[in-house]
């Protein structure tokens, strides 16, 4: 069907010398991307300032429901005030850190916890997916539970995990409060991995599965040589979702369990300054955004490392 372009010569058909269809080259993309990213940040800032300038001072309400936000300096500080605030000390106390440094510290703390949560979530999700692929009965039994698990509100879960953890004591290992946060983060992270990886493991074509069977390959060999490599294109978006979930889970769980040191707690504390120092609460929010970007970037790096598994077969 699609081979009409094949040359009529009986000699080896070296279509491979023809270069692949032109796409945007990775090098070019790498040059343009930072520019686009910077522009989009500026665009958001411009939108913010435009509304602040044009919007009604007290917002706009309809029957008691506020549909447009207030534009006072209290509700919407100028973007440049938010940025400038980052370079001032956290508080008036002598020897207080500069704000951006405090945010970065809190971000690093949250990042560590999120990374642990992500790793646990990915491992658990992958194991669940493999088990579901191996035994159809497990898939039927577990998959609905996996979906159901995500309907439990995080806020309800956090105190439970915390109190269970506090009762745990395995040998010399004592349960640390940050572990509860990591567990909650992993609870959010495992879900996309379990679902995405299951789809990936089931992705190989019948012909490939039958070929492995014809080679006398058992389930394990088929998993390693065929199913896992074939799962990579499905797994990468799942890992990205898991990273985002782990970050959100960490920040929310820090708030819910009251874990000090991280961005979640900082958001909570700085919210008290909304009236006296309006740009200040925005700092940890920027920190959370940065954290999400770093997490997504790391998964993108992982995707680059695995890019040979993202090749697709071209049918003859």
């Amino acid at each position, binding site marked *: 069907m699609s*081979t*009409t372009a094949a040359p009529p010569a009986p000699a080896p*058909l*070296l279509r491979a010398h023809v270069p692949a269809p032109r796409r945007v080259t990775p090098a070019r993309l790498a040059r343009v991307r930072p520019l686009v990213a910077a522009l989009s940040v500026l665009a958001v800032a411009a939108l913010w300032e435009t509304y602040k300038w044009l919007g009604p001072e007290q917002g706009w309400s309809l029957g008691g429901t506020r549909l447009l936000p207030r534009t006072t300096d209290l509700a919407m500080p100028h973007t440049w005030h938010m940025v400038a605030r980052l370079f001032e000390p956290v508080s008036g106390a002598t020897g207080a850190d500069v704000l951006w440094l405090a945010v970065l510290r809190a971000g690093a703390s949250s990042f560590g916890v999120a990374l642990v949560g992500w790793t646990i979530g990915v491992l658990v999700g992958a194991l669940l997916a493999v088990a579901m692929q191996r035994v159809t009965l497990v898939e039927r039994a577990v998959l609905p539970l996996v979906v159901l698990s995500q309907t439990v509100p995080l806020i309800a879960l956090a105190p439970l995990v915390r109190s269970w953890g506090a009762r745990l004591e395995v040998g010399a290992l004592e349960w640390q409060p940050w572990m509860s946060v990591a567990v909650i983060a992993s609870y959010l992270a495992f879900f996309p991995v379990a679902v995405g990886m299951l789809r990936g493991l089931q992705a190989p074509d019948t012909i490939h599965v039958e070929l492995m069977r014809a080679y006398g390959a058992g389930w394990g060999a088929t998993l390693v040589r*065929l199913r896992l490599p074939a799962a990579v294109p499905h797994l990468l978006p799942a890992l990205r979702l898991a990273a985002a979930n782990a970050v959100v889970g960490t920040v929310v769980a820090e708030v819910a369990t009251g874990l000090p040191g991280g961005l979640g707690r900082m958001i909570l504390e700085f919210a008290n300054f909304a009236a006296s120092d309006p740009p200040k609460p925005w700092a940890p929010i920027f920190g959370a955004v940065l954290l999400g970007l770093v997490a997504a970037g790391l998964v993108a790096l992982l995707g680059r490392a695995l890019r040979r598994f993202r090749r697709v077969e071209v049918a*003859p």
Partner: protein
Amino acid sequence: MSAVQEQPASPPTPHPRGAVAVAVQQVSRVFGGRGGDVVALQDVDLTVAAGEFVSLIGPSGCGKSTLLRLVADLDEPTAGTVRVFGRSAREARLARDYGIAFQQAGLLPWRTVRANVELPLALAGTGRAGRRERADELLALVGLADVADRHPDQLSGGMQQRVAIARALAESPSLLLMDEPFGALDEMTREHLQAQLLRICAETRAAVVFVTHSIPEAVFLSDRVVVMSARPGRVRQVVPVTLDRSGATTPGSEPHDDAGDDLRNDAAFFTSVAAVRDALHGGGAAGRGVDVR
């Protein structure tokens, strides 16, 4: 070597093995479905000698692919026995007695051409150096040594199919199972690959079970053509083909297509094509397993 060989099919050299490659006895395969059972195969008998090239041909739905899948142990018969080199089909599969190729090349996209050919060897536990040597040897055999480090998506359909054939030959199987391997290719590539397959079979001395729906292809390649009929799938007739393929199968010299073209223009070729066509379109002289439909 026993004194079994009296086949006129390949006069110059007798087959090295006297064994029977495939023995199918009274095999039936019924697929249970919602709209009742479908009889894909009924009471099929087939014997393929070692080194023999046998084609299965028939209308779609005649169960020729099903028969091949039973031999490969990718499916199990409802009744009857399938034996491959004296063992059950399952044992033969686990012992990697056969190589297999389908209509789609089925190459793993993330592996290079060489790594694809190495796959069956890796699964069999062959060492790295041995795998590489064998893969390069096979790629040279199918004329693809220069693309060994490319990926499948960089190859044409014909080249992909040749890689699949090299892969099927990886463990030097004494039996090759091929399910319309050239079905998706254009005519020129197809004839070229047929000539190459003949040469490879002459060199490796493997028995071949070859499913096709092309009469000239079956005649060109086969020692015997098994003509099947549909609903229920049965062997209607077995047409022996006697062509002098010595020209087309001489190893060594480069393009074999000329010899293949000579063969295709041979009078015996046309006679056999006519015989197979007769058998396909009802009746046939030696009415075996006469079909009433």
